[in-house]
């Protein structure tokens, strides 16, 4: 089916690591996706006095010590902790030992919106209330965005790994997957650990609040009454390797990465532009050698803001014409996990393919006539999925779309 591509240049997903408000690890996450679980609850990680409403999708009960064995946890901000935890889960899921990883070349790409902004919030508050002298040097030393990817190399002793933190915000997870995908298909690396991570911070909540894009109750993508996002947190990491490598070592293959596309609108700081979004989908489909009518499902960026959903559906209609597939938003369940969003969605797409179901868009009451789409409202459905598209559209017009395909051994 994938004519013209050798096993060495085909890229497959062999490990998944998930830290999310609806489940840590694959079994809990799959269960939540199937049952349409919501991660929404009142925010507790910062003082919410003064805000008219403050619901978010925080992660409770995350134990750093359960996942982080080598790097002292006080040297890691919350986002880096999530990043390592998801990486560890993905590596174990892939059946790779630390010795294996150290003997192979590795590319580590982690995408983010805020990096360690939760720590920056804290430092800012300290400085305002108590002055520069009161800043904690331990916190100051762990705020650098590059640590999100370096921390993984540190934890597993991967002294030869190439580490990259990609800061294209809410589509950065897809950028990282594309980065890992490229590195493997051109033979630059044996293993790519790629994904995204972010932690809830007051700064981001306030910025979205100021823009009038925080929902007072829940996230309702494509709904007539949608009011905006709920800020969330977490990390998603995927292990990518060549098909040849996976088959040689007998790894379990979750799905295949068929291709991806990137565009930048160069239009507006925060408003998306439909033509550029459509062009990004075109580029991804062409890279994957997939025709629009072959796509069985789209995992939308689907933030649940007025602007995004109508623009994204317009772009989808432009590309897919009469063959618009079912289009869901996992943000209805996860909230907007920022840099982790498109990584967690890509993982959701991969699991949907393997387990044969479409996760629902929850909180749906009435589809907005301005963005009519079959969003699989409220209840998951069984589905035979062969090709799934994952959209990531970020502020700054940074768009990244990834195409995943089911790997069928008998048709390989």
């Amino acid at each position: 089916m994938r004519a013209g591509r050798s096993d060495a240049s085909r890229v497959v997903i062999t490990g998944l690591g998930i830290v999310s408000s609806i489940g840590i690890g694959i079994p809990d996450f799959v269960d939540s996706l199937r049952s349409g679980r919501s991660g929404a609850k009142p925010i507790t990680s910062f003082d919410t006095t003064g805000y008219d409403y403050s619901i978010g999708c925080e992660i409770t009960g995350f134990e750093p010590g359960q996942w982080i064995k080598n790097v002292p946890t006080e040297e890691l901000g919350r986002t880096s902790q999530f990043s390592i935890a998801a990486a560890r889960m993905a590596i174990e899921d892939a059946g790779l030992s630390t010795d294996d990883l150290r003997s192979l070349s590795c590319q580590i790409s982690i995408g983010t919106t805020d990096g360690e902004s939760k720590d920056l919030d804290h430092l800012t508050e300290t400085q305002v209330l108590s002055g520069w002298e009161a800043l904690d040097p331990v916190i100051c030393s762990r705020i650098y965005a590059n640590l999100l990817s370096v921390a993984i190399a540190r934890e597993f002793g991967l002294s030869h790994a190439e580490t990259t933190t990609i800061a294209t915000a809410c589509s950065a997870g897809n950028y990282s997957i594309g980065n890992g995908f490229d590195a493997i298909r051109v033979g630059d690396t044996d293993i790519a650990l790629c994904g995204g991570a972010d932690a809830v911070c007051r700064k981001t909540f306030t910025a979205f609040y100021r823009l009038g894009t925080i929902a007072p109750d829940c996230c309702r993508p494509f709904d007539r009454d949608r009011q905006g996002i709920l800020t969330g947190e977490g990390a998603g990491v995927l292990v990518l390797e060549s098909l040849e490598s996976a088959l040689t070592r007998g790894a379990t293959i979750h799905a295949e990465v068929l291709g991806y596309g990137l565009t930048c609108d160069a239009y507006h700081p925060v408003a998306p532009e439909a033509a550029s979004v459509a062009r990004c989908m075109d580029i991804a489909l062409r890279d994957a050698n997939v025709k629009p009518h072959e796509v069985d499902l789209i995992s939308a960026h689907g933030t649940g803001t007025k602007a995004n959903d109508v623009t994204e559906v317009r772009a989808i209609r432009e590309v897919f014409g009469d063959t618009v597939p079912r289009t869901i938003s996992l943000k209805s369940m996860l909230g907007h996990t920022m840099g982790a969003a498109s990584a967690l969605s890509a993982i959701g797409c991969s699991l949907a393919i393997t387990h044969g179901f479409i996760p629902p868009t929850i909180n749906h009451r009435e589809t907005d006539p301005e963005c009519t789409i079959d969003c699989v409202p409220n209840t998951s459905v069984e589905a035979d999925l062969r090709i799934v598209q994952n959209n990531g559209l970020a502020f700054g017009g940074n768009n990244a779309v990834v195409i995943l395909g089911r790997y069928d051994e008998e048709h390989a």
Partner: protein
Amino acid sequence: MSILAIDRVQRVNELACTHLELDPGEITDTALFIEDYGVDSLSIIDFTAAIEKEFSIAISREALPELVNLAAVYELLANSPVL
């Protein structure tokens, strides 16, 4: 309806010129920010945040779309209790 004091009118004008990137000479009370001056929605949020801070008032999310020109801002201020 109360009338806004002249010094506050002047201050609102200054803030409008700074945050909406307009010349003092070109701005009028009735011209529309978006339709007539091509002001960006993000700049309006910036401007209203500055108004809130300068005059110690809170502008509700519902009131924002009604602030279409300077006259609307004067009226809002004249009728807003100080926090």
